[in-house]
């Protein structure tokens, strides 16, 4: 979570499911909720790769764009990190 938290906007809560089927994010400011079918480790890895401009699969890229568009993660830190 600590690694993932560097990408999250303020007020975003994350719950990784214990069966490792995915991770759910909730933004209490926008009240949006999004379930991604990636484990928390995988999610963190994808965001790290994106920030370093390491190529992502189409599904991974789509998920990152959804997270940005729906205001779960900051676009700026990802760009700065890259």
């Amino acid at each position, binding site marked *: 979570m600590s690694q993932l938290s560097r990408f999250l906007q303020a007020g975003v*809560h994350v*719950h990784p*499911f214990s*069966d490792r*089927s995915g*991770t*759910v994010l909730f933004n*209490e400011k926008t009240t949006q909720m999004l*379930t*991604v079918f990636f484990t928390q480790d995988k999610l963190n890895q994808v965001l790290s790769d994106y920030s370093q401009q390491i190529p992502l699969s189409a599904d991974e890229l789509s998920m990152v764009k959804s997270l940005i568009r729906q205001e779960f993660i900051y676009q700026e830190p990802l760009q700065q990190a890259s």
Partner: protein
Amino acid sequence: MTATYDVLIPPFNFRVQTDIALVEQNLHTLYGQQVLPEGTLPFIDYHIAVRHSTGLRRWFRPQASFFCDQHEPLKPLHLSQAFAMLEWGMNWTIAAHELQHVIVHSGILAKHNQAILFPAPPGSGKSTMSAYLAFNGWRLLSDEMAVIDPETFEAIPFARPICLKNKSIDLARSWFPDAPFSTVAKDTHKGDVIHLSAPLNEDDRFAPARIKGIVFPKYNPDITDIQITQLNQSQAMHELADNAFNFSLMAHRGFKALTHVVEQADSYHIEYRDAADVKAFLEQEVLEYV
């Protein structure tokens, strides 16, 4: 003449006012000893009323109007649908105002204090199945709205009459000929509608239950055997959140409660033709026996 009652429907206390005899009659038939003289309960959560509409509609094709405090949130209905309107008005009242509990659009029943959530859209057979279970050893916590304590994550009873529609009416009458039924509200937007009061042990009226399962049911008359698909937690959360009225308004508390419920429950899609198959599946595969 206007009658006013306090109606005890844990966890909420309602004050109900009506000048419609049909409403008063059905209120007593279905809620029995929960209908108390005005002023009996020490506090009232919600003040609601169903009254004759005024003006022309008092006499020509007479209508009933629902009020929550001084607001009229629903369109008036034909007078013969006034009791159904009271029930739907109660649903609206809780869905629109309740922020102390997480509210899920779902049937919920329990056995051995283990509750199963049945979130489902209209037409899924949820209410018919709930009626079958409630009269066959299960405890009805709610037919329409599951109330979840955001601190304990337990389901709290909000037991009200089961709303049955169209073909289910005759089926339920044949299953439970001696049960308390309301009068039929004909030609509503849901078709013909009747309400059925499920048996309830006084000791269970306030008893919470741990949520052990989340079952998304679908009635299918064209299959022979029940079909069961287990869901992972992400799938269950995705579908459960679609049925949660107010979790987003409760912010982190609501989110935490829903994730906890999903973590502690087993989740399934089922397609069934016979409610007895659902009962057998739940009792043999989902409930824990200590």
